[in-house]
């Protein structure tokens, strides 16, 4: 198991390098001169040239790429923001916990709501409760997140004044953003839980558990649910991506000072170092969470763990034969 973790951690190195490479290429193809945004388009040419020299923009592409990578990797230096002239890394670290919290909470809430919903739907298939929850789930996956955010804001902040329309000061402020990010996932999870549970219920081992004289709901939860959860965990990477993306939009709608809003403001201001930094940070945290999810996956499904063990065994045996 330890070997697996180490292997996965090592794999993060090419992933991060790849991400840096993608982000660098994106900034290269961007039209417009960053110097214009820094010193103003009508500044005298000498000032512009001096600025360009200072930022190292006159070096050839590969030198700049190498410099960029070395700086990021060795000093965690993502450059300075063009608008505030503060280190991007510092600005991001203030905002990152908020985005992460928003994303994880929304996934957690979605799981808590949707898994029981999908479970009941599967057990009471074709009943009114199944039809109702599947209709809700279908709306959940079909409604545009940002529009759901706007509508809940209209109803709960403007009309009913239950929750603030902007900011996340206090618990009440979190409700609407979390709901907005989570709405799609509720639908998604409920649908996946239902279909995987339907498949599990027909398995022989469920009949075996019933043949033991076990209570029906214990059969469903103890023997069924854990097996049915496997596809949900397998899908969580997808979900995490959607939620992080959703968080970016939720932060702009509800004026939450997170990484997403920071990046979008930076895009509008052509403040490339901040955009790059945000992308790099989110991509790295995404990879780390995916690693944790994979470990969880191995814990839920013992078949995976031993598959990995078996692979290692074959490898070491082959090595022994070769030696």
């Amino acid at each position: 198991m330890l070997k697996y973790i180490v292997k996965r951690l090592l794999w993060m190195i090419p992933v991060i390098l790849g991400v840096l490479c993608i982000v660098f290429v994106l900034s290269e193809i961007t039209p417009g001169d960053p110097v214009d945004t820094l010193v103003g388009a009508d500044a005298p040419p000498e000032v512009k040239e001096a600025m360009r020299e200072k930022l190292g923009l006159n070096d050839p592409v590969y030198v700049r790429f190498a410099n960029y990578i070395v700086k990021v990797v060795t000093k965690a230096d993502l450059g300075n923001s063009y608008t505030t002239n503060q280190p991007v890394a510092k600005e991001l670290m203030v905002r990152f916990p908020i985005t992460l919290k928003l994303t994880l909470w929304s996934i957690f809430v979605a799981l808590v709501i949707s898994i029981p919903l999908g479970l009941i739907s599967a057990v009471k298939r074709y009943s009114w409760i199944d039809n109702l929850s599947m209709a809700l789930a279908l709306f959940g996956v079909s409604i545009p997140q940002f529009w759901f955010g706007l509508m809940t804001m209209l109803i709960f902040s403007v009309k009913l004044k239950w929750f603030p329309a902007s900011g996340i000061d206090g618990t009440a402020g979190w409700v609407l953003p979390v709901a907005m990010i989570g709405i799609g996932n509720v639908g998604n999870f409920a649908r996946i839980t239902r279909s995987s549970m339907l498949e599990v219920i027909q398995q022989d081992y469920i009949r075996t558990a019933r043949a033991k004289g076990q209570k029906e709901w214990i059969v469903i939860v103890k023997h069924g649910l854990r097996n049915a959860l496997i596809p949900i965990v397998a899908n969580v990477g997808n979900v995490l991506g959607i939620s992080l993306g959703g968080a970016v939009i939720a932060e702009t709608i509800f004026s939450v000072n997170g990484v997403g809003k920071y990046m979008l403001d930076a895009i509008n201001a052509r403040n490339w170092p901040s955009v790059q930094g945000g992308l790099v940070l989110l991509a790295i945290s995404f990879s780390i969470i995916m690693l944790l999810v994979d470990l969880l996956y191995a814990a839920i499904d013992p078949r995976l763990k031993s598959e990995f063990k078996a692979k290692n065994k074959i490898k070491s045996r082959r090595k022994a034969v070769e030696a």
Partner: protein
Amino acid sequence: MAKLYTPAMAKIDKKKAKLKGRVRKSSPGREAWKRLIRNKLAVAGMIILVILILVAVFANFIAPDGIDNQVLKNRLQPPSAAHIMGTDQFGRDIFSRIVYGTRISLPIGFVCTVLAFAFGGILGSVAAYNGGKVDNVIMRIMDIFQSIPPLLMAIGIAASLGNGVLNLVLAISLSTTPARSRVIRAAILTVKRNDYIESARAIGASSRRQLLRYMLPNALGPIMTAFTFSVATAILTVSSMAYIGLGIVPPTPEWGSMLSSSKELLRQAPYTLYFPGIMIMITVLALNLFGDGLRDALDPRLK
């Protein structure tokens, strides 16, 4: 035991394989179609989609007004007989803009998905067909691309390419390519394990022929389902990006972009926000209904 494989036998095998291919292709397809049209929700989804397409085609006959016909004295009128969905802050008829919006969301969502499946299809089928090192390299590169969440990737690409429909299409299709390549790779790998591929190889079909004639047609079912859902996702992505001001910009009557320009009116004229959102939802809902129906029809045991 071991008999020589004569040309005559190969001929018979070829005939058999041909027959097998034909039977496999037509009859399950017809069965699936029967199941699909028996599914009321799927049919509802199909009808909505057909209506939306008709609206898009005949938009200039349906819309009472133009896309950007600003009549300032008619600003912010709530829904009435003259303007059934009201007017926006520039005095434009919202209903007309909504009608013209069908010409944007559906085609863009469709084209983005086609491109993503084309790029992803090439990568995925090459990876699945060759297996081994080629597969490993392609899929690891896809891993790296997928470590940036698709919406962020699309935002990044769109921001660096600048606004415009073409750039937006490129951004969305590129950002979803890795996920689509996985779908196609998985579908082909499933098919590859079947015996009729073995028999195609036995009759000496070229690798391109094996891939195009045998694997892709048989992998078509799950790919079609994934395609439908992807169009739905693409439409949502287009409108989300338009909402944050990327890709499609005013005065183009894209529904997300309409919401973006009306978001300040939340307190003052909330009706300007209702209809564009409802339209996005109806379109995506129709695609999801159709996709669900397709999935159940192609794999009935899951229902």
